[in-house]
């Protein structure tokens, strides 16, 4: 399934669109102290679909939140497109999310009172920017929702909703798109559509994307899989397919 991308070594690959260096995220203190991230370092290659995998509690969602400027780190550095996020204020983080980051969440991706089209253009509307019409048309065609643009989220199926969310993330042409279990709530067929969309965005338009998932089938769409366990990086796998991922997961699951 994953014969498309060229075989690249991480070190010699494209420049990093985002990077984290020795990031720690500690919740609570004293006895209830939990390290959700415990010294994670990672580079996200430009123009590629990167998957972050790991079991529940491995810290993969936390990592993504921190990379996207949704959450702050306890120590370490997070760099996004050359900007160091650590130390940025709330205002700057808001601008960063608005102008340079796109999101696809597992659920509740859309503002229920806005139509599909309005949801897609929401980030640029908030920023007060005029969306790029040509690009917007291409994105809408890519997600195949031209005839559903006037519908409210409640009138769309789960897969359609998630495709609208993808369109929203892509329409603003962000530096990087973060997708948090984008197929978690979808049936297999819808899930495949969404994953295909994200991969095409990376390969056809050079859209850097980071996807968090615990589903090997979903991760197999990625160019690079990063395994996370107990708040640490437990391994990397380039150009994976579902079988190699499963294999790696088994070995990662056993004590090192």
């Amino acid at each position, binding site marked *: 399934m994953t014969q498309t991308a060229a075989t690249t070594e991480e070190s010699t690959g494209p420049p990093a669109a985002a990077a984290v260096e020795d990031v720690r995220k500690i919740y609570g203190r004293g006895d209830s102290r939990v390290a959700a991230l415990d010294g994670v370092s990672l580079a996200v290659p430009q123009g590629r679909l990167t998957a972050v995998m790991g079991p529940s509690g491995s810290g993969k969602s936390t990592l993504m939140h921190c990379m996207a400027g949704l959450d702050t780190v306890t120590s370490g550095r997070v760099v996004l497109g050359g900007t160091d996020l650590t130390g940025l204020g709330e*205002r700057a983080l808001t601008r960063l999310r608005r102008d340079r980051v796109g999101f696809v969440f597992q659920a*509740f991706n859309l503002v229920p009172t806005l139509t599909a089209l309005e949801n897609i253009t929401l980030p640029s*509307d908030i920023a007060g920017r005029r969306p790029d019409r040509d690009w917007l048309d291409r994105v809408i065609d890519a997600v195949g929702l031209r005839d559903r643009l006037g519908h409210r989220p409640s009138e769309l199926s789960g897969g359609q909703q998630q495709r609208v969310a993808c369109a929203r993330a892509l329409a603003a042409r962000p530096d990087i798109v973060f997708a948090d279990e984008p197929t978690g709530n979808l049936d297999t067929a819808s899930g495949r559509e969404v994953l295909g969309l994200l991969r095409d965005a990376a390969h056809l338009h050079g859209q850097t994307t980071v996807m968090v998932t615990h589903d090997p089938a979903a991760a197999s769409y990625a160019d690079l899989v990063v395994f996370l366990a107990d708040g640490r990086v437990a391994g990397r796998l380039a150009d994976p397919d579902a079988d190699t991922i499963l294999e790696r997961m088994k070995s990662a699951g056993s004590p090192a």
Partner: protein
Amino acid sequence: MILLRLALRGLAAHRLRLALTAVAVVLGVAFTSGTLILTDTMERSFTRMFEGVDADVDAVVRAEQAFSQQAGPSLGAGPGLPADLAEELAEPEEVEGVYPVAEGTAALLGPDGEEVGGQGPPQIGTTWHGRPGSGVALTAGRGPAAGDEFALDEGTAADQGLEPGDRAVLRFPDPGGGQVDEREMELTGVFRAGEVGMAAGATVAAFEPETARRLLLGDPDRVTEFHLVGDDAKSQWQIADSVAPVLPLGAESLPMDIVRDEETGPLLEVLGFFEVFLLTFAGIALFTASFLIANTFAVLVARRVRELALLRAVGASQAQVRAVVMGEAVGVGLVGSALGLAAGAALARGVLAAMGAAGVGLPEVPLRLTGTSAAVAVAVGVGVTLAAAYVPVRRGTRVPPVAAMRDDIGATTAPVTGAGRLAAGAAAAVAGAASTAGGVLLAGGDAAPWLVGAGAALVLLALAALAPVLGRPVLRAVGAPLPRLWGLPGRLGRDNALRSPRRTAATAMALTVGLGLVAAIAALSASAEESVDRRIDEAMGADLAVVAEGFDRSVPPQVVEEVDGAPGVAAVAAVRVGQLEVAGAPAMASSGDPERLARAASLDVVEGGGGFSEAGMMVSQDVADERGWRVGRDVPVVFPDGTEAELPLEGVYATGSLVSADHLLSPEAYTEYFDDDLVAAVYVSAEPGAADRARAAVDTALEGAPGAEVLDRGEMKERNRESLARLTGTISAMLVLSVVIAGLGIANTLALSASERVREIGLLRAVGLSRVGLRKMIRLEAVVIAVFGALPGLGVGLLFAWALHKVLEDEGIVVFAVPVGTLAALLGASVVIGVLASLWPAWRASRLDVLKAIATE
């Protein structure tokens, strides 16, 4: 743009949930705008009523008035002017017409022999000139020309079914206080005064000039005033000034505009007080509504945490998210204000119609909605909504963007009590207590009532702030018997009320405000009642009191002579009244014999004590202390006709007698300086064992004297109780709206809670709770909230009433009474309010589809 769109869509999406909030705004704004429209329309009505009448008159010549007469009984016709002044007034070339006017009281008697209009509206008798341009136009018949003819205003004639040619009886009280004159006269014409006619209920009878002078003033050679019609090219001032050289001493000439302002001024002032009175209650209603608004928005943002977090995640700043929700608040405010304005106009129309139906209507004019009123109504509606929504919205929109992705964060609620809330609540409580205590300690001072009022407001605010914390034990106590009485539904109802203390407290506090004020008024009224009862028991030495019916009446003086010496009557003490200026300040004075008043009305002369030796005066202890006056000095006094005199101070009397005025003139001084003879009260003591005979004698004397009635002690108490009850009833009625809004608030909270707990309700139903049980659960939650709101309200109300009683002790509220029955009734009413408020939310919750409810995310 997108923010506006989001706000509008949000409004549309939550319109059901916002409906009750909007209703609360509508009610508050309707009250406010209704008041403004009503008073504006009444003002226009008053002005228009005077506008057309005597439109051609340029100046008025009348006897000089030392000071304007406003308060108390209308003090007779005044000295007037000689009728033959007319010839001299006509001399200046600026003057084209001189119209002598005699004015007084003329009551039309209906077929039943009773006065038309009763004791309320004025019964005016005036002079018929029938000149074109006067604004008084005949609509039927002709003007009166002979001594036994009269014309009548259109409204009264239509009301009484009188037509020209009919005969009717008119009653003329002697302005000098003599015998009432009644005579049958022929109606020759019906007229309309001014553009809009007269106030409903008022009767105006007009007579040929000579007849008017004789009947209304009792003197064919005098008139009340002259109306001058002048050269159109001259100003009113020029015309008024032109006759100055011929004016006798004590007469003045004034432009008509000034005179008209004098007439309308006091009316407009009363209207102003009326407006402030109503607006106060509108303000209380809006304050109550603010609790409901705050609750709704708190729940609304809490339920939309993920949506708001999503906006944050895709790059909206906190300010932008807040702007979206506040935009919805603006929408609610605007819609509520617009509907409220419409409702206010309807309300004003309704009140005017009711006034008309009650016979006290004003001439009909179109409703007057000024731009200012509309702007105020909208500003108030939007302002209150925004102010109430701001804090919960600010708190609720502080969501981290991560909340869009996490299930757990949406569920976390803000801590029940921040340190800031505790500190603010405690500070308000301390300040409120201090202010109230200050008011009580400074009792008698001008600031005292304000201090107490501010104290009560602060205590209420402190309660609102602290209720979420302090409320828990109270809620637990209120809810304690429920599980035992109603089993599982009772337990669930109690626990639900305890679940969100902040919301429960805010909901309950709205009721606290309304019920607290009602309780305060009830307690104060009960205290006043007992105080007056005690005063009557202690101070009334006489057996009977003859008093005037109505404020603008007096007891016919001949009653005093008739009763004095009648069989069974041991002693009579008459109190006369007059208005004067004492040492530069306007004052009401009583007049009577101190010795007689000492027995009949407990007048206690503490200084001097020798009674009056000449035309002298006494003052109350209060005035003596305030002015530093001692017996023996002379007091400068000005009487209504302008006479100045120095009266020797011959005594000082203690407060607490039935003579409430601060100045007491000797009977000699009264006769000498007042033209009128106005008897306010006659105290009659019976001979031992002859109470019935004395009463019969008084009744006989009153038969020929309409406008006065006799009361014994019990009847006096009853009379006082009735007027207090009317006042209490009026104020309570004004507060009903606040209580209604508080009830809406409870319904709102229950509906919001039920919609939040859809899954839980589904679960309860799934495991076997019946619809009836579910409704019971919600009903009991409502009752717990209502009682929780009522209890502190009653407490604060009592405290407030007690403090006011302390402040007003000198004014005669010497007893503090706790109206236990009323308080119990209010508590019962709160239970009923709770049950009523729960009907709709409980019905809705019980209709939930169990399966769908469980499946809801």
